[in-house]
């Protein structure tokens, strides 16, 4: 009964089928647990028999976004589209099809496998450079995954204004998860939160858990970036910035940070 009353008060904030949505990419090496993570987030129960993901696996979750944290009536509902991209090496030349117009990125690594964390740079760079490689664009060159490892430029990331979060899975099997969290250089480079979860139990994803709060903050950031922010650059500028000189870069970053602090 109480929920019925609530819903009548908030009738104007309920979400229709064509409601607003954000596209969030979930990337990482093969077998780190992306599919389990997304399944747990959307269905609230762990995935019993995970299989290798061919291509892309899609899940949808409705997220409550409060534009004003103190006002309950400012609740708005958004669809979160999770695009869980299969990490097999066999598909690396065709993955770019899914990267188009993504609004946020979840970088997943395996806490028992150090290399999966180090590969996240390659994944991030891959998403950022391949995002514009959609079909119909003439003259695109296919980048090898080896090229991604060279010189990941944090500047490209800052210019793209795409929020990111780093999630380490298999917390129950790892002994050094805390160490990795505090020393993740990638996290400091891109200013992302780092959390560690266990995708075989739902305990890390209950609303009160600190990991879930971190995730909710990330979702809020993605939604704000897409719908409420005026400082996001148009997408084509990011790649042309690759050729720009390093001398101007600190000036550009400085002016951008000034802009963002004045506009909010």
């Amino acid at each position, binding site marked *: 009964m109480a929920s019925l009353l609530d*819903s009548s008060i908030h009738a104007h904030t309920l979400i229709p*089928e064509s409601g607003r949505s954000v596209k969030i990419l979930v990337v990482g090496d093969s077998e780190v647990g992306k599919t389990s993570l997304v399944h747990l987030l959307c269905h609230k129960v762990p995935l019993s028999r995970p299989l290798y993901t*061919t291509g892309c696996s899609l899940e*949808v979750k409705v997220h409550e976004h409060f534009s004003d944290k103190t006002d309950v009536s400012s609740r708005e509902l958004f669809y979160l589209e999770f695009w869980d991209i299969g990490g097999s090496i066999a598909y690396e030349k065709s993955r770019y099809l899914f990267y188009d117009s993504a609004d946020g990125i979840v970088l997943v690594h395996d806490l028992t*496998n150090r*290399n999966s964390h180090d590969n996240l740079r390659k994944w991030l760079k891959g998403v950022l450079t391949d995002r514009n490689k959609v079909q119909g664009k003439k003259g695109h060159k296919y980048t090898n995954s080896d090229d991604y490892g060279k010189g990941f430029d944090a500047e490209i990331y800052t210019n793209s204004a795409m929020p990111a979060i780093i999630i380490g899975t298999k917390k129950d099997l790892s002994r050094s998860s805390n160490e990795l969290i505090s020393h993740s250089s990638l996290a400091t480079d891109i200013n992302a939160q780092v959390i560690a979860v266990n995708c075989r139990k739902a305990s890390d994803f209950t609303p009160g858990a600190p990991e879930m709060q971190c995730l909710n903050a990330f979702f809020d950031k993605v939604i704000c970036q897409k719908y409420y922010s005026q400082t996001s650059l148009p997408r084509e500028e990011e790649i042309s910035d690759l050729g720009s000189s390093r001398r101007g870069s600190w000036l550009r970053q400085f002016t951008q940070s000034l802009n963002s602090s004045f506009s909010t």
Partner: protein
Amino acid sequence: MDDIGQLVTDCLCIFASQVVFFAIGWVFFMKQLFANYEVHNGIVQALFSITFSLSCTLFELIILDILSYVHYLSKEVYWTVSLTGITIVLIVILPMYFAYLLATMIPFISKPKHQRIISVIGWLTFMYIFWKLDQPFTNLSGDGFLLSLEQCISRIGILGVTLIGALSGFGAVNAPYTYMSYFIKPIDEKSIEAMENKLLETEKHILVKKKKLVLLDNESYQPIANRSGTGQVFGRLMGYFSGGWGSQDSRQLTTEIKSLEELARQLFLETVELHSIRERMEFSKTLKGKYFNAVGYIFSAYCCYKLIMTTINILLQRVGKKDPISRTLEIMVIYLKINVDVTFWNQFISFLMVGVIVITSIRGLLLTFSKLFSNVSSTRSSNLIVLFLAEIMGMYFVSTILLMRMNLPLKYRKSITSVFGDLQFDIYHKWFDLIFLISALISMGCLYLAHKTPVEKPQYN
């Protein structure tokens, strides 16, 4: 005194080179094979490196023999040591550890004592099968002792020769097929775009349906106008008791989503294939691609020649007696009347040939391993696969030496013959020819089938 001094220096040099090979194997393991995994089990890495090091030592000894750098005594010592070493590794250590790892992975056996017993049983099974390999080959190695080095090497040789024959047969057919542009089906850009568009459309459909499903499952998110039932309260009660329209809709939606997801997977796999064909096409237009194309034609001509020769060999039951190097030099001297210093050229060309064979087979094997490993392995099975690959590598290298013997002039053949003892080398060559032919024919059949039948497009209404 001089002799002993020489012996010691030689042994130290060869040992130093073994350490270098071990380091190369170690680094290869870490950087290439396990590039995407974290190494938790150092023993597996050590075993792989030891096998690699011992195999490379064998090659090195042959090369040193040809160059006559080494004192004959140290050569004898080292040959025996290396052969014994690699035999023990291949027959005892690798299979035993493989069985042990397998035993640790079985979920319902947790006590270490049980695991050890099971691994010993596994090893004994392996030894039994290994021993029975002698059956189809009569009198493979004369009447040696049961556990003598010759017996073991002869069986390792059989396994390795089978492997080499199968791989060569497949390679002989596959290499021209991959590189020759004659076989590359032309794909135009429009069909690739159409396929990509279809894929993205399907993903969009899936998203729409999933959003519908989320709304159905969580009624509180729906606008009131969409609620089931006439009145709100009445509608909710009906929803609870009859499991009514809502759950039927959601079941239907779930099945629709499942079939859409299956379609999306198929479309993605087709897109991947189209992309790889396009990549091959673009590669064939580059300079390197044209070079490979030309080499492909030459290579396929050579492979046809080889297939014909092996068929003749098998039919006529003959094995070549003279090696190609001496024969070429003979032809040059006798028929073409060119004056060549036979001994010098014999040595030089043998050295070159052995060097080229050794380097290409090591490189080829390691590259194949990396590709195979990244395709096949998963986090749980990575250690097992590496051990299996180490075993194959050892057998492959030992058999390469056996087969190489036929291509070397008489003088150098003797060293291999003396080391390997009383093996019937002819049997190996005949067996190699047979396996090569069978493997090539099977690969041709498979490639023909794959080339002719196009991928069937799934129908979706």
